[in-house]
C-alpha cells in the first residue's frame, strides 16, 4: 500500500517493485475510489482528451477573455512557430503555444482541466502533449504519466499547498511545473529516482514566486507564467534525465516551499493588493474592467 506523504516513499515503493510510479498509483487509486483500474484510467484518459481539445480551442485567433484584458497570445506564438521564426526550435515553441492556449481558454470561460488549479491549467497539458507529439509517445504512456504527476501533486498538497491564496504562485505554477517535470521523466523512460530529482529541480526554480494577479483575475501574469512553468518543467526533466541530481531532496524542497509560503505577506497571496497587482498600470486595468472602486 502506498501513501502520498513523501516523494521518497513513492520512489522507494516503485524501486522495490521494479515498476513505474504510475503503476502503483493507478492500482492504489482504484482501491481507494472503489472502482476498477479500467474505470479510473478511463476518467484520466477523458481529462487528457479535454486537455487536447483545449489546446485547439485556445489557439483561435479572436479568443478574448471575459474581462477583455487577454487573448490571442497563443495564436501569435503559433504563427511564429509555423513560420519557423521562433528561436528555441519547434518543440519548445509548440510547448509554449499549448501552455498559452489552455490558459487563455480558461480566461475566456472555455473548458479546461484544473491541473492542479485553473490558474495553472496550461502547464501539464503543454508538457505532456508536446512530449507525446515530438517523441511519438502513446496515449497510454501519457495517461499513465498523469497519474505520476497527480501523485506528486498529492504529496505537495499534503505537505505544503497547491493554492495561491495559501502559498503564492509557487504553490500553483510551481506545483504544476514539478508535476509536469515528473510526467516528462516517466514518459521519457526515466527512473523513479529521476522523477524525484526532476520534481525537486522544477520546484527549486520557482520557490518564492508570489501570487499577484492584476485585478484579481486569473489572467495577468498567470497566462505567461504557465508558459514559464512549462519551460521550467522541460529544463528540470532534461537535467534529471541526463543523470543530474538535485542536492536538496524533493521532500525537503516541498517543506521549504511550505515555509516560504507561510512567510509571504497576505498582500502577495491572491489578494491583488501587492506585487504586480499594485502597479500603476495594473490599477488602471482594474479600473477599466470593474470601474472605480471605493
Amino acid at each position, binding site marked *: 500500500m502506498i501513501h502520498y506523504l513523501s516523494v521518497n516513499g513513492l520512489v522507494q515503493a516503485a524501486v522495490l517493485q521494479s515498476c513505474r510510479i504510475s503503476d502503483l498509483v493507478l492500482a492504489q487509486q482504484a482501491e481507494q475510489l472503489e472502482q476498477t483500474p479500467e474505470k479510473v484510467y478511463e476518467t484520466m484518459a477523458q*481529462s487528457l482528451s479535454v486537455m487536447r481539445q483545449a489546446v485547439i480551442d485556445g489557439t483561435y485567433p479572436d479568443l478574448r477573455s*471575459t474581462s477583455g484584458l487577454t487573448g490571442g497570445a497563443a495564436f501569435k506564438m503559433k504563427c511564429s512557430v509555423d513560420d519557423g521564426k521562433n528561436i528555441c526550435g519547434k518543440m519548445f515553441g509548440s510547448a509554449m503555444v499549448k501552455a498559452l492556449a489552455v490558459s487563455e481558454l480558461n*480566461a475566456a470561460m472555455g473548458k*479546461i482541466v*484544473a491541473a492542479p488549479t485553473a490558474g495553472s491549467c496550461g502547464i501539464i497539458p503543454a508538457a505532456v502533449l508536446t512530449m507525446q507529439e515530438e517523441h511519438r509517445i502513446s496515449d497510454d504512456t501519457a495517461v499513465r504519466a*498523469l497519474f505520476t504527476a497527480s*501523485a506528486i*501533486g498529492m504529496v505537495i498538497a499534503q505537505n505544503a499547498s497547491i493554492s495561491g491564496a495559501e502559498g503564492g504562485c509557487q504553490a500553483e505554477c510551481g506545483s504544476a511545473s514539478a508535476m509536469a517535470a515528473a510526467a516528462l521523466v516517466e514518459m521519457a523512460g526515466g527512473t523513479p529516482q529521476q522523477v524525484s530529482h526532476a520534481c525537486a529541480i522544477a520546484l527549486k526554480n520557482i520557490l518564492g514566486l508570489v501570487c499577484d494577479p492584476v485585478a484579481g483575475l486569473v489572467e495577468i501574469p498567470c497566462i505567461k507564467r504557465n508558459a514559464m512553468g512549462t519551460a521550467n518543467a522541460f529544463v528540470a526533466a532534461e537535467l534529471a534525465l541526463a543523470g543530474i541530481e538535485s542536492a536538496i531532496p524533493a521532500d525537503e524542497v516541498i517543506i521549504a516551499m511550505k515555509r516560504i509560503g507561510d512567510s509571504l505577506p497576505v498582500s502577495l497571496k491572491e489578494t491583488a493588493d501587492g506585487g504586480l497587482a499594485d502597479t500603476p498600470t495594473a490599477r488602471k486595468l482594474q479600473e477599466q*474592467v470593474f470601474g472605480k472602486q471605493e
Partner: protein
Amino acid sequence: MNVFDIIGPVMIGPSSSHTAGAVRIGRIAGALLGETAVKAEIGLHGSFAKTYKGHGTDKALVAGIMGMEPSDGRIRQSLVLANRQGMEISFYEMHIDGAHPNTALIALTGRSGKNISLEGASIGGGNIRIHKVNGMEVDISGAATTFIILHNDTPGAIAAVTQFLAGQNINIGSFRLSRRQKGGLAVMTLEVDSPVSTQLNQDLERLPNIISSTVLAPQ
C-alpha cells in the same frame, strides 16, 4: 484526497471558486425551485460583488439555476439563453456582516409563481456551502445525497420522514432542523448514504405536513 482532486475537475474557467463553485450554488437554487425560473434576483457579497464580471460569476450562477454543470460549454452564453427562455435577471451588490467573501443570495420565482431563496458561499476549489434556505439556517455542502424538506413545524412531521426513510432502508448520515417561528414554516436537511429515486422523493412529499422535498445528487 484522490488523483482527480489534483488533475481535475474538468470545468469552465477561469476560476474554481468564482466560476465552478458559483455554478454549483446556482444548481442547488434551481433544484430547490423545481421548475423553470421566470425571475432571478441575485445579490452578491464581498469578492463576488467586486469581481463577478471579470470571472463570469454572473453567467455561472445563472447557468447553474438553469441546471447546467460546471463543465457545461454553454455557461458562457447562459445570460443570453436565460433571456431567450424568458427569465428576468437582476444583479445587485450587497453586504452581509460576517459572510464568506464569495457569497451569493439568490431569490427565484418559478412559472407557477413559486418563490424560493437561497444563500450560499463558494469556499474554494469549487467547494460550496449553502447557509440559508428561504431565510432559515441550513448547512449543505452538496457532497452527499441531500434532502431539503420544507414542512410545517408540527409534532410528528420529523418522525414521519425518518420512519419513511427507515422503511426504505435509507441510512441518515446527518440531520439538521431550522424553523422561522414556532408552529410556522420549518426546514429539515438530511444527508443520506445511498442514492434516492424521483419516485421515492415524490412518495415522501405526499407525507402529511410536508410542503416540498428536494433531493440533491452528490456533486
